[in-house]
């Protein structure tokens, strides 16, 4: 299912955090939005989720999102928030089952089918052993997988992920993203996500967009977007990029490597002196 923004702006507390954003994402592709802190990435994700006021038009499946009722929107689009709220004491199964909410009646009462689907997704994500565990007792990686599970249980054609790996170590980051990549192919999902790690972003995206100060700077394939010049001008770091087929590997160099080495030498020198004195 296709997603598109045209002229979308968000103003928060008198500050324009998103300024006339225009982009469209074809169904079945993975758009990764990158940009420095405070660029407006989360606000952009919230325009899709319908949880922030905006001007301009957001289209979900070709239809103006403003006219889609909340429940229908939740059947088209699932969100993995950056800081998910975990209700205290809830167990993994009940938490994942919340994903079925938009498919339930006004009483939000889960059916046998809802329970079965939830169970299937949990097993698919190898969370079968965690079902009765309390979510707030899980490790960061496990918890993130449970949150992803809830979004998949929602069974939507579009998945919106706001920094889905921000609290995970490298191994768990790859694990979660590889899982999403797999599921995307399996279910032909449209994925829209933000990722702050450029190297990781370059490996998984098939489309990328750079956002800075609320404006869309550029967009295209990872190879077109992730250039040393782009990284230098918006992140202020020197980077080396290597294009390998569809993915791009970014290696970042320390800004003042030479001076850093010099200063480390001098510190070593001082400690040597102090050792010789004592």
């Amino acid at each position: 299912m296709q997603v598109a923004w045209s002229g979308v702006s968000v103003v928060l507390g008198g500050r324009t955090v998103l300024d006339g954003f225009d982009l469209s994402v074809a169904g079945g592709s993975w758009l990764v939005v990158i940009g420095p802190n405070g660029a407006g990435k989360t606000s952009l994700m919230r325009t899709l989720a319908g949880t922030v006021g905006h001007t301009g038009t957001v289209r979900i499946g070709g239809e103006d999102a403003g006219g889609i009722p909340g429940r229908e929107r939740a059947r088209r689009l699932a969100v993995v928030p950056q800081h998910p709220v975990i209700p205290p004491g809830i167990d993994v199964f009940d938490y994942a089952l919340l994903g079925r909410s938009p498919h339930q009646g006004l009483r939000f009462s889960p059916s046998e089918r809802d329970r079965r689907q939830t169970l299937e997704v949990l097993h698919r994500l190898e969370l079968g052993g965690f079902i009765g565990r309390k979510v707030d007792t899980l490790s960061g990686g496990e918890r993130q997988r449970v949150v992803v599970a809830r979004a998949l249980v929602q069974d939507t054609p579009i998945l919106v992920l706001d920094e889905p790996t921000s609290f995970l170590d490298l191994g768990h980051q790859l694990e979660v993203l590889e899982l999403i990549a797999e599921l995307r192919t399996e279910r032909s999902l449209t994925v829209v996500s933000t990722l702050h790690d450029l190297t990781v972003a370059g490996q998984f995206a098939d489309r990328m967009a750079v956002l800075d100060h609320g404006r869309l700077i550029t967009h295209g394939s990872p190879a077109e977007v992730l250039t040393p010049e782009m990284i230098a001008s918006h992140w202020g770091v020197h980077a080396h990029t290597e294009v390998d087929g569809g993915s791009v590997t970014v290696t970042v160099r320390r800004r003042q490597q030479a001076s850093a080495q010099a200063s480390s030498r001098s510190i070593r020198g001082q400690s040597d002196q102090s050792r010789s004195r004592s």
Partner: protein
Amino acid sequence: MTSPPAGPGVARYRPTGSDRSRLGGCWLSAGIASVLVAAVIGVATGPVPIPIWQVILELADRLPLIDVDSSLSPADRAIIWDLRAPRVVLGLLVGALLAGSGAAYQGVFRNPLADPYLLGIAAGAGLGATIAIVTRLRDAVGFMDPVPLAAFVGALLAVAAAGTLSTRRGSTGSPATLILAGVAVANFFTAIQTFIQQQNSETLQQVFAWILGRLSTAGWGEVRLLAPYAVICVVGLLLSVGPLDVLAVGDEEATTLGLRPRTIRRLVLMAASLGAAAAVAVSGLIGFVGLVVPHAVRMLAGTSHRRVVPLSLLFGAAFLTLADVLARTVRSPAELPIGVITAFIGAPFFLLILRRQATS
């Protein structure tokens, strides 16, 4: 007979219909049993001793399709049906409403410290009752006691004021704004109430007795007064358990799950406030039930509102009825205010919960 062994990789954990609902069913049975036990003890306790088995037979006799003879004298029967049963039923209803609406308030505000008096119900009811008492409305009206009605109107006015003040044009306020508006309204109403009370010191004792809460009844009048609101409130709360579980992930995520948080919050608060206001109107300010009972339920049976709300209704009913038994018997023939009993049990229990939460 042996069951076939579960194959490898087969989901052995089946939350569908098995252990989960069995556990829930256990707690539900325990809740219903506690209500029945509390009701029997409540009816059997009093200055005139009536053997408990005779009470059970007498109560059972009133059930449809059951015909037993309790061999009670007409006088004992009158004691049971005209004096004790109305009081017990009132206790059950008030306890259920206070605990159920407490559970709903805590769910709506996602705050374990919320209770049914949070938005000014207590202060509003107090003001209404005080005005009715000092103006001697009872003498003016004659045919009915106007104090409950005045308290009910006062309580609903206070909640409505808090709701309106926290709403800006075009949008409803956040839960935090609503709570602050409630606190402000409560203080304002309490200030007026204190002023009126001080100006009319001759009715001080009457006002004070009302504020402490009591379940004294004269026949079935209070029960009839309370029943319609109790039905609306209980039905409303039981319908809202699903949405309250979704709301537990916060407004923003609940929106992305297809819920309309503000609408739900408003509907649940209306149902809960109506029940709590009606309960307060007939029984005065009985504290801690709305706070302690849902907490105890959560600790025992889990945090899902599908359990917390119905079990709070049941255990709240039993708890208040038993507290009333204590209030009647501890210094018999004198009666202690029931609010004293619930606070005496509730406050230490509440501190225990706070300590537990602080350590976890």
